[in-house]
């Protein structure tokens, strides 16, 4: 967790145009272009800072252009200039433009979505398990998942965009799913046995362990198929999801449940 926070703070997220604003063009050439020559060509156009990289295969190039606010050119003109420079038979697979205003809005929407879902899950668990310790335990585990997924994005420099937010929320949902299953068993065992709380938690985790692993494996199998065959567009999203499934499984076992102990949950509370 600390490492993720550190990564997140020191190595910036590679923000996509969804949040930063700018222009993105995915173009497929009839033959693999020389990146250096291409870069030179684009620099000469003077259409602001640009980034050029291969996307999936060597024929497909992703252009990312920063749209400067005070430039007199509209985004249409910039895109047109870029297109004029490239061969006529180029296949423009994707053209995206996000204005600075919309970028800011999307950013605040994304933050809201993540925060609200964390709060909603916290409240649900609190009520459902009648103990704030459960809610808080789950919440900390969730924070851990969100933070380490952000850390994953910083480390790999995979573009952080709206799909990444979807990945984070799905991971949160998935991880809380795991946590709930363990908590559920703890609740059940609380009524059934007179064992000490530590032992009881341990027992509950063990009882649910095989299910937790099974589901993680099948989910990972499905994600693996998406990662290999699903195409370049969803690759970032899928790799974040895979990471999240691993981290979510781990967090519900090693973080959420022990934290209940840490927060001083007493068996008496539940029984009364």
């Amino acid at each position, binding site marked *: 967790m600390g490492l993720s926070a550190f990564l997140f703070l020191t190595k910036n997220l590679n923000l996509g145009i969804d949040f930063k604003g700018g222009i993105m063009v*995915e173009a497929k050439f009839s033959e693999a272009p020389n990146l250096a020559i291409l870069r030179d060509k684009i620099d000469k156009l003077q259409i602001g800072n640009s980034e050029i990289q291969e996307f999936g295969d060597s024929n497909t190039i992703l252009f990312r252009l920063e749209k400067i606010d005070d430039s007199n050119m*509209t*985004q*249409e003109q910039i*895109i047109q200039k870029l297109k004029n420079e490239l061969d006529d038979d180029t*296949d*423009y*697979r*994707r*053209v*995206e*433009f*996000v*204005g600075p*205003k*919309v970028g800011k809005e*999307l950013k605040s929407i994304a933050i809201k*979505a993540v925060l609200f*879902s964390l709060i*909603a*899950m916290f409240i*649900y*668990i609190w009520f*459902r398990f009648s103990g704030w310790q459960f809610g808080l335990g789950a919440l900390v585990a969730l924070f851990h998942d969100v933070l380490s997924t952000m850390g994953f994005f910083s480390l790999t420099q995979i573009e952080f965009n*709206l*799909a990444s*937010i*979807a990945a984070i*929320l*799905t991971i949160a*949902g*998935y991880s*809380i*799913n795991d946590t*709930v*299953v363990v908590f*559920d*068993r703890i609740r059940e065992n609380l009524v059934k046995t007179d064992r000490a709380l530590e032992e009881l938690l341990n027992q509950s985790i063990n009882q*649910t362990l*095989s*299910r937790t692993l*099974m589901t993680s*494996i*099948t*989910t*990972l*199998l*499905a*994600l*693996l*198929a*998406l990662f*290999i*065959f*699903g*195409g370049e*567009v*969803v690759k970032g999203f*899928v790799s974040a*999801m895979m990471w999240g499934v691993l981290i979510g499984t781990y967090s519900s076992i090693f973080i959420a449940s022990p934290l209940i102990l840490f927060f001083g949950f007493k068996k008496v509370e539940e029984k009364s």
Partner: protein
Amino acid sequence: MLKINKWNVFFVLAVCLTAIYYIIPNIYGKSEVTALPKFLSQKQVNLGLDLQGGSHLLLEVDTKSVLKEKSEDLVDDIRKSLRKSKIKYSNLGSKITGAVVTITDPEKITTAKNSIKENIEKGILIEESKNKLNLFFSDEYIIDTRANTVEQSIEVVRKRVDESGTKEPSIQRQGEERIVVQLPGIKNPERVKALIGRTAKLNFHMLDPTTVELAEQRGKLPPGTFKALNADPTAYEKQFVVKKRVLLTGERLKNAAATVDAQTGRYVVAFEFDKKGAKKFAKVTTDNTYQRLAILLDNKVISAPQIREPITGGQGNISGNFSPETANDLAVLLRAGSLPAPIKVLEERTVGPSLGIDSIEAGKKALVIGFILVIVFMIIRYRVFGIVADFAIIFNIILLISMLSAIEATLTMPGIAGIVLTVGMAVDANVLVFERIKEEIRSGRSILNSIDLGYKFAIKTILDANFTTLIAALLLYNYGSGPIKGFAVTLSIGILTSMFTALILTKLIVTFWVLKLKPKRLYI
């Protein structure tokens, strides 16, 4: 006690039939589906713009400019009414939303106020302090003006998009002053965007005989004129001196079309005025014969022809330096009318058709392979129960797709990812049940009893666990945009169908199997 519930069987059969009913139309193409017999469903899953290719545009209408214009008009109105009632004034000027004026003689302030009041719109309020009159737009007036401006803009944009030949466009208002335009399967987005974005205000003025060079020598323009650029920067005449007075506007046009001029062989835009416009045009051309007309589009001169003879038929040609495309575009713009306010593109997402097709292929492949991986794994791990779970997965996908068709949801690439993910997660409910059954058997219960208890205990966990995922999916739907919404939809429906298949369908199958075959040991 474990037994087969008749109602459950009935329920499952009903769900199966409904699923089949809704899934059938998806086999056919879009055009074939309308030819299906009436008793069949004709609802299909829609493909999102990212799968079928197309453009998504978020536009913003600059309603402030309309309010500014209205403020300037207000200044004119004040000037007129004060002159009419011969009241002296000073410091007349416009504000962002309204105008101010100082009345020289404080005694006449009430008369001034009343005379102005007669000439202005209802929603404009007047406040007086000492000898100053402060005119401002009421909140209602501002809201109405903005709403009207956006409404009109949507109308104009719709006409332009329709004229450009885009099939099944969707044009909707979003928030206060935004418009979302969706253009599926569009071939040349740049051109349509250029069409949508143009204000296209057409005005007819007279050209002042003074040339720009002469005006520059004198150091000032003749009174009542302004300098306008030539729309064609390559032309010989770069600038014109144009008389300020607007003789006719594009609003009076009845029709416009691109044609080839019979004499010159060049592309021109032929236009036709309505009755009132034709009358005015006849008068203008009669009064100003042999002078030059100036046709301005968005304050740039597109044509400045000499009037050779009075034109009484209300028809004419605009002969700029047109290509077939630009002539056609101008005709489209003139037919659709001008935008009441400038429009800005805030966001654009265009996907080419090739990427869409590739994405569908990739999605299908990932779905099939992910499916096979999970199915094989489940059989290896749970044997007979694995087969039951696999049956649940297959049924789950069928159910999911049929529900997506029933609500005519839009399938996007993240949406397909959601389906694949559902395949992986859908087994979760089954796994929970199976593991529980296994445990109960281990603790020495009978097979029937274990199965019964397994379902009983697992159901609570399944509901709790899935509900939290549903929370995440709903929030995603609420906050996400296009493609992400598609993901949220498939994920939430996937959760619901997986609960159904695990708790009702597989329970039925397992019960049926155990009761009929009475196995002595469960290999689970």
